[in-house]
């Protein structure tokens, strides 16, 4: 089918989404929060036979998703997660969204209440170019993954790979996998975040569980 191939192509273009997809077992129950146009979800439904659901804020994204036959509701991660029962999903995905969420702890708790696993990806403020921008140029950092000027950015949380590891530990979550992605899009699986990883990763994906 045309739509399936299109999804597969779009997924191949997005290294981060491909890596997220690789973390998900076939046939599982998946909630994709901030699912955009539904590309990842559509890929997972057709190629991994998941029972997939999505939440998306933009009407355009919801329309495209629903037109693909996906079960996507217009809503907001911070308001709508509370309605889902505990353990409703095997995986709850939060791609490139955590940096714009006000209640970070509450949202992470909700992810791992309704899901066995959470897959969280975000841009790394510890990336060397970002650090240099601030250190050398004295300007608020911008990068391919942090493309907004400080005054236009929807991002309200700026944190690094190491920050996230510390928060997950503090909240009692177990990190099963970390994949760091450098500016060339090369992904490297890690067991922990060392000093150099935090310098070189432009973004990262974490697979977490409660225990």
């Amino acid at each position, binding site marked *: 089918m045309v739509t399936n191939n299109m999804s597969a192509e779009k997924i191949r273009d997005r290294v981060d989404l491909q890596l997220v997809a690789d973390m998900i077992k076939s046939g599982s129950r998946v909630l994709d929060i901030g699912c955009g146009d539904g590309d990842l979800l559509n890929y997972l439904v057709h190629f991994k036979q998941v029972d997939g659901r999505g939440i998306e804020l933009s009407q355009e994204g919801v329309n495209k998703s629903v037109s693909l*036959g996906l079960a996507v509701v217009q809503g907001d991660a911070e308001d709508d997660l509370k309605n889902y029962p505990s353990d409703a999903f095997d995986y709850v995905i939060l791609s490139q969204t955590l940096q714009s969420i006000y209640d970070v702890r509450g949202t992470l708790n909700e992810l791992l209440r309704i899901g066995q696993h959470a897959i969280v990806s975000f841009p790394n403020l510890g990336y060397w170019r970002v650090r240099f921008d601030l250190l050398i140029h004295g300007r608020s950092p911008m990068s391919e993954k942090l493309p907004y000027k400080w005054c236009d950015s929807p991002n309200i949380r700026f944190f690094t790979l190491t920050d996230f590891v510390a928060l997950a530990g503090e909240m009692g979550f177990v990190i099963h996998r970390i994949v760091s992605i450098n500016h060339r899009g090369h992904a490297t699986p890690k067991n922990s975040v060392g000093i150099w990883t935090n310098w070189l990763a432009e973004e990262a994906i974490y697979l977490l569980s409660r225990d």
Partner: protein
Amino acid sequence: MTTVSNSNNAHEGSIPVEPAVIDLPGHNIVLGEQVPLSLVSGQKLGPFTISYQTYGKLNADRSNAILVCHALTGDQFAAEVHPITGNVGWWNMVVGSELPIDTDRYYVICINVLGGCMGSAGPRDINPKTGKQFGLSFPLITITDIVAAQKLVIDYLGIEKLFCVTGGSMGAMQVLEWASKYPHRVSCAIPIAGAARHSAQNIAFHEVGRQAIMSDPDWRNGNYYENQELPNRGLSVARMAAHITYMSDSALHRKFGRELQDRTNVSYGFEADFQIESYLRHQGNSFVERFDANSYLYITRAMDYFDLAAEHDDVLANAFLNTDVKFCLISFTSDWLFPSSESRQIVHALNAVGASVSFVEVNTDSGHDAFLLNEPEFFSILSGFIAAAADQSNI
């Protein structure tokens, strides 16, 4: 007509309904002949007539049927020139060849609701026991009864499972009732601009409409059928008041503003100076040509009584436990009669039971009536969801 026989105990106390003389296109079937329909009120109905219309062709394995449920003042003529008014069908932009509900692909059924006045049993019909029209002696009906009668039609058509049930406003209530009561008979459900219960505000508006009808001296406690004068003034005021609730403030301003009707100055009197007044009067006057005042009382009451959660310990989610039905809810930003928050409540209940649900709030200033108007965004969601579901069901 006396139809008492000892083998027919099921009909003891059942109310038979003889159709008033009508000659409309479409299909009429007599239901409740063997077993009467048990109404929520405790009364039994049968035999009675239900009128419906169909578009498209039922496929060989009877898997492509879409039931379209009409709203309060709609009827079965969804996609054709109306036999009484001569206007285009109320969903002529949605149901038809190559339209969102594509009659080249699906078999579309639209049933005049029980209590209605386009052929289905209602207060204008004859009580064979008295030989007179029922008026207010017609039993009260509910959304549950309306859907139970629809299910008898679907049984009669030999359709095991409806591919889709959809409708707006009161139609959405029927969709929810179908999905809740007969989940194994529905593959996907699309309630549009609906609610799982009629709000206090909406009951209030309905009461205004009913009081307008009942204060018309020509209404005569509902026994007006043999008179020259029908309670048209009351019914027309009811329609005018209701029509305001179907639109939004900004749509009214966009369409009418403070423009005057056929004059350059106000009349300093009570003529229809403003275009909006003239428009509402026209809406009221044309409505009475096709609608029965008592039917309006009965159907508004059916909506008022609708409360899906109430039947399930006030927990809406319990109305959909273990459901396999795929839901797609659609609401409109400027709809203040059935606001998006009502749809969202249903979405939350469906999420709570892990149902497959899509939900879109369409951006428009057209108010509640948006589901009847040219809303390309709405059409694209509707056709996208239905086509994708049909692909998955190999239709």
